[in-house]
């Protein structure tokens, strides 16, 4: 450890390189590009307007809605995604590349287009719409519809993270567990899943964060009830920049807080395990 450290210090002092200097400068510009608009917005927003907006019932409801719907979408789709990720990591089958391409599709298509497609898929005259109305609920304009829109654009993150996690578990360990009498299901739950857990948690967090911040697909499926990204858009359209800023600042803060909290919980779990 110490020798590694002293080596890197030596490396720094001995090999001055123009390349490294320029790379660092370019990186600094990029970081500024990310930080300064957000920081500028925070600084341009008076504290009292943040406080009063935070007390706004409409804002509070939208933030709460955004968080729980994104969380519900993540958990429900985890049940579908994690077994698929395992199969993709462990087995080769015809058209596997096509399947992998389909999974990445939501990432590359415009999210508004995804919203249009989803709207048709869940509209009242579709199979899904008819089935749901028989069961007494509707997807269009409801949290269920929002969850579907969020999941559609964010589930590739979970599948890909989980797939990489499973792929990094040595197959030998699964074979050994089979030899020790475990059934394939038991091997999955006691060996593969715990060893891939770190990547799966990263995937869950990514999917959750991506779902929470989704705007394009959601606004087409459900303008109301209003999730916070839609609310920000609405305040900007109706009242202008000044009124959109406080909601944005609050939502960014909430996103960061949730993100950090989830990471901390995940890290603690990892230590306990």
């Amino acid at each position: 450890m110490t020798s590694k450290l002293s080596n890197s210090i030596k490396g720094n002092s001995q090999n001055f390189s123009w390349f490294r200097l320029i790379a660092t400068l370019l990186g600094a510009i990029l970081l500024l590009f990310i930080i300064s608009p957000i920081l500028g917005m925070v600084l341009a927003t008076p504290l009292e307007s943040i406080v009063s907006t935070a007390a706004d019932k409409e804002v509070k409801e939208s933030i709460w809605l955004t968080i729980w719907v994104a969380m519900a979408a993540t958990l429900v789709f985890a049940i579908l995604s994690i077994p698929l990720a395992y199969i993709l990591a462990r087995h080769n089958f015809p058209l596997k590349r096509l399947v992998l391409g389909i999974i990445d599709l939501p990432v590359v298509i415009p999210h508004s287009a995804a919203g249009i497609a989803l709207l048709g898929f869940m509209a009242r005259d579709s199979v899904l719409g008819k089935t749901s109305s028989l069961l007494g609920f509707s997807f269009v304009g409801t949290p269920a519809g929002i969850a579907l829109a969020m999941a559609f654009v964010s589930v590739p993150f979970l599948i890909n993270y989980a797939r990489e996690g499973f792929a990094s578990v040595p197959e030998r360990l699964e074979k050994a567990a089979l030899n020790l009498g475990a059934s394939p299901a038991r091997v999955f739950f006691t060996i593969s899943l715990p060893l891939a857990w770190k990547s799966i948690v990263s995937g869950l967090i990514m999917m959750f964060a991506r779902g929470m911040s989704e705007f394009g697909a959601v606004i087409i499926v459900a303008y109301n009830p209003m999730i916070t990204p839609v609310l920000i858009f609405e305040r900007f359209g109706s009242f202008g920049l000044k009124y959109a800023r406080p909601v944005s600042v609050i939502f960014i803060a909430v996103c960061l807080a949730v993100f950090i909290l989830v990471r901390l919980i995940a890290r603690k779990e990892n230590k306990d395990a």
Partner: protein
Amino acid sequence: MLRVENISKRYGSFELNDITFQVEKGDYFMLLGPSGAGKSIILEIIAGLIKPDNGGVFIDDVDITRLAIGNRSVGLVFQDLAIFPHLSVYENIAFPLKRKGMKGQNLKSRVNVLAEEFSITHLIKRNTQNLSGGELQRVALARTLALEPKVLLLDEPLSSIDVQLRASLKSLLRSINREGQTIIHVTHDYDEAISLGSQVAVVNSGRIVQTGTPVDVFRNPASEFVANFSGIKNFFKGTISDSSEHDLRCFITNGISIWLYADDNSGDGYVSFPENSVSIALENPHTSAINTFQGVIVDIFQQKHGFEIWVDIGIRVAALVTWESVEKLGLKTEKKVWVSVKANAVRFIPIA
């Protein structure tokens, strides 16, 4: 007890071809061959991790070829051991027992008994990350033997272990075998095969080229491959006796004493010496070679270079002699000759 019959398996250009052998209860069966010969695949087929294209595997005359992996009563210890890294030593050993529905105090005491048997009681609470190769090997053995398999399969168990620790692991394996555990052990190491095996099958290019006791196989190699792989025709089983002169030890086989250098003071084992270290004379040569015996030539074979001459001195010893010497000494069968072997050329391999 375990029968492998006409197993074939094709993998691209590699082919396991018509593998047939039989292991009796209590055998320590060695599968010896160079790497890439297909030994590990044979183990994985017996364990059910690989399905053979043809042929069958039988335990106590029951066909287990299509049986589920977990129901075969075959324990496999992988070359890399496959210790579960997220579980503690205790949980690793408990893993197969839990599946059998064992829990609570029963489970705990069974794990503790196993840990004691394998001298890892002090490690039981540790996680497995910082254990040495030898400790991990013991954890893997305890975990695999927890289910009391009918056959224990070991894939190169000594390869991941420091040379110093090999002797103790060898005697552990030997004692497991002595308690009645049937073992099939895969190795590329000729010494390992000799010192542990009660039966040896030599594997090359996906075929079994010879099967028998170590003495049978190494003294009577059935093919050029086995001869080259074992390389040695002067190969004898016997005992090192207590008597010694300076550093020299006396090895006794069939009433013949052979002097040699060895670290072991006593015990059973094998000695070997190359054919080209044996010289032949018509009269007692009084050379520096310590091992000098009188005997009768029983066989002469022409070789690529010179002749291989077999002399009976109470045991049959092979010497490699040039064409010129055969001519000069007039060597022929039934002629009485003196044979000498330098103590330095004799190698002792103890039985673990």
